[in-house]
């Protein structure tokens, strides 16, 4: 079927006026996929601009038949259609169009395409497209009748990073499929090279997903590292502060949709401060009304904040409804960055890793480079003495709690981009957050950072060979054992600052 298409590129002059032909249109609107595919090939063979436009319309789903109904296609037709369009676009003057076309072709090469790919390769001036065409051509000639060509093809494929190529090389290196030992050897060597590259890519991908999970854990836990770690408040309502941040993001999205639809893509930037202050305000409210009366009474704080968390969940249900709300990724966070054909890093996760770093920097600067941070540290280290030298300890407590809550709000902004936003979303993160803080060592921000990243990467590595359910169990068991051995966590405060 394909070679029909390829013939067209050799003889562009052979112009059949199929685009306007009603018979072809009828065939395109036919019930059977085979008829549609035949019509697509006929159209593609004309290589006329109208035919290209018609096929493009068919791909977009905007082509109508004579009754005015949309012509629908299934995956099989779509694959043929995309292949045909890619071949037609191979001569497009625009580099990005050509690049996409070559990638489409490379994912579905067969032997009949070799001459066409060779011509396209020799004509191509853009190096990255040329490299792709070289690989595609090699793949097409891997089963050529000439053993010399086969060897050349196998050698050329050593630079590939495509899992499909790996499978083909493997097949070519087996005696059942290849008679020439020379070709087998070349194919096997290339196979090893591609396999190593893919294994490396896989490990990199896994580390990235671990990093991504770690950054999410960190954003969820960083606020708690301040309120629990530094101030010693067991705040069971921490998860709900995350939820408030996420709902603030949702609210900003709504505001932008109704008032600034043109700038909708940037609602997330506006949501960052809004979520921070909304969560901080709720934090202040909680601290002033409930928590400050309970300082030093861990058990009562735990119960009181748990009650508060239930109240906050119900409040969210009343205000926003019990169903999850939809928070869309802005367009600049949709899609992925293709590092290699086998790993695509989703943009939303990359942005969140960056955001986690930004929040971490912010907290570090606040705690270590500002007067407020100094006061907070002083109060944690020795409350009585700090009070004696004039630090307003009560107010510092409020501000520190608000800061922790605000950072939880920022975590909520990040979560809204990858997870579901609903009234009880916080419940799923409270355990993870405490896990991170306890593992890292109470009273230490650095501990929380290492614990979050470590847990993220370890979880992802276990997940990839044992599945998500087992991974969760293994990580919890590991933490229980670790805390048994080392109750103070990874990093412990040392010296005379340690209370009791």
């Amino acid at each position: 079927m394909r070679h029909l298409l390829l013939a067209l590129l050799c003889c562009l002059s052979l112009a059949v006026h199929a685009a306007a032909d009603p018979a072809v249109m009828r065939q395109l609107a036919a019930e059977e996929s085979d008829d549609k595919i035949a019509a697509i090939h006929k159209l593609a063979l004309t290589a006329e601009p109208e035919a290209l436009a018609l096929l493009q319309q068919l791909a977009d789903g905007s082509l109508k038949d004579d009754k005015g109904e949309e012509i629908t296609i299934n995956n099989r037709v779509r694959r043929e259609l995309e292949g045909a369009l890619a071949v037609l676009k191979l001569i497009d003057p625009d580099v990005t169009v050509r690049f996409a076309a070559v990638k489409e072709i490379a994912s579905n090469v067969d032997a009949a395409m070799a001459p066409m790919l060779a011509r396209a390769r020799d004509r191509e001036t853009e190096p990255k497209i040329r490299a792709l065409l070289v690989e595609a051509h090699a793949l097409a000639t891997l089963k050529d009748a000439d053993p010399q060509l086969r060897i050349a093809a196998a050698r050329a494929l050593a630079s590939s990073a495509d899992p499909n190529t790996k499978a083909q090389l493997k097949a070519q290196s087996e005696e059942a499929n290849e008679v020439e030992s020379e070709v087998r050897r070349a194919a096997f060597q290339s196979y090893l090279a591609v396999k190593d590259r893919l294994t490396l890519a896989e490990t990199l991908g896994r580390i990235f997903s671990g990093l991504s999970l770690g950054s999410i854990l960190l954003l969820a836990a960083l606020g708690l590292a301040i309120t629990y770690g530094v101030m010693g408040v067991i705040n069971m309502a921490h998860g709900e502060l995350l939820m408030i941040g996420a709902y603030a993001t949702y609210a900003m999205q709504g505001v932008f949709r109704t008032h600034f639809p043109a700038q909708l893509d940037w609602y997330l930037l506006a949501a960052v401060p809004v979520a921070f202050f909304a969560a901080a305000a709720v934090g202040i409210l909680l601290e002033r009304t409930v928590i400050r009366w309970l300082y030093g009474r861990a058990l009562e704080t735990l119960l009181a904040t748990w009650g508060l968390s239930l109240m906050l969940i119900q409040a969210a249900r009343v205000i926003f409804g019990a169903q999850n709300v939809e928070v869309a990724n802005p367009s600049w966070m949709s899609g992925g960055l293709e590092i290699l054909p086998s790993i695509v890093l989703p943009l939303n996760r990359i942005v969140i890793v960056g955001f986690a770093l930004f929040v971490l920097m912010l907290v570090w600067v606040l705690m270590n480079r500002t007067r407020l941070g100094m006061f907070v540290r002083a109060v944690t280290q020795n409350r009585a003495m700090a009070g004696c030298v004039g630090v307003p300890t009560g107010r510092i407590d409020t501000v520190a709690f608000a800061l922790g809550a605000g950072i939880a709000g920022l975590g909520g902004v990040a979560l809204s981009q990858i997870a579901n936003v609903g009234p009880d979303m916080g419940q799923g993160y409270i355990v993870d957050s405490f896990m991170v803080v306890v593992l890292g060592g109470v009273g230490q921000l650095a501990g929380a950072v290492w614990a979050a990243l470590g847990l993220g990467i370890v979880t992802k590595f276990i997940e990839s060979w044992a599945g998500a359910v087992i991974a969760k169990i293994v990580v919890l068991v590991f933490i229980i054992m670790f805390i048994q051995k080392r109750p103070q966590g990874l990093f412990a405060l040392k010296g005379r600052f340690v209370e009791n």
Partner: protein
Amino acid sequence: MQRRNFVKATALTLALAAAGFVTQPAVAADTIKVGILHSLSGTMAISETALKETALMTIAEINAKGGVMGKQLEAVVVDPASNWPLFAEKARQLLTQDKVAVVFGCWTSVSRKSVNPVFKELNGLLFYPVQYEGEELEKNVFYTGAAPNQQAIPAVEYLMSKDGGAAKRWVLLGTDYVYPRTTNKILRAFLKSKGVAEADIMEEYTPFGHSDYQTIIAKIKKFAGEGKKTAVVSTINGDSNVPFYKELGNAGLKATDVPVVAFSVGEEELRGVDTKPLVGHLAAWNYFQSIKNPQNDAFIKMYRDWAKKQKLPKAESVVTNDPMEATYVGIHMWKQAVEKAKSTDVDKVIAAVGGQKFKAPSGFEIKMDEKNHHLHKPVLIGEVKADGQFNVVWKTKGPVKAAPWSPYIPGNDKKKGEPEGK
């Protein structure tokens, strides 16, 4: 407890109980109570809330046309909150306290399994509107969703066909509970019977509410890169589908390369997802909103009007889906059966439901099987379009009889096609 407190508490309980007893018969005289048991919060709320709305809409429709046997229906809505033991508690409450004549509810099989003993013990009546794994036939339950041979098996057969992409390798991906595990057990046996090797099947599970699908997507990519055409069968349930499809779109896994066919994802679940990168991924159901026929047009219009009248969130973009249709059909079948039996007595109604026919929005006059408590339903396979609707690419010629006991599970050939003790 001090004696005085005990006396007080007992008196209070008695007084409350008495109040309950006194008020109820007065209401029950001119209305028939029906229970609606769907999660309105938690991980399943994404799917089940719409079913509650559909049930209320259908009840309002029936009431507007004069009710059932001249009596108005009165809906009792409870929220079991995606919490499986709570389903049993709420079911008991509906049957003993509210004394409902029938219950429409449940989505996940685990919730159905947890209410089954309650319906059996109290001889209640449940209409279950969602496709499920089969392997069950309760006297007290009518199944208006699909059994495996009305959804899972045809979907896999389609993917094996030339038009479906002739898949040779299979990823069976699901949420970790009874429905996906059983369905995958059936599918594994089916695939083996078609000559698929053990090494060409990968099975993966995630917990309820899971939101990080990076590893799974990476694994699917790796599995698909081994040279043979791969397809994914997803039995992921609830709001995990949103992060799953987001990740799928972002990772650039296209339907033309690795098609994903889902059994628990319909128009409603895709409302929260950008479907442009998902064009071509599939779902298998017995109804799609995009079907064109007069019954369906009326059904869609009725639901849109209902959403506007009830001021549902985003009422302008509500959609209908398969379990909503099954709910609608179930309630009408129950109404017809009550009218035939001239009573709401559970045993009489059960005897009358078999053989009921109803012109459903799927475009067929569908029938409740005389014996096996399942509907005869058409099977449809749809591809996701850019607007979140489905484009039907394959369908059966007519309704198919359900086989709740899948022939691919050993020992099932000896089981009877009707509930025990009937």
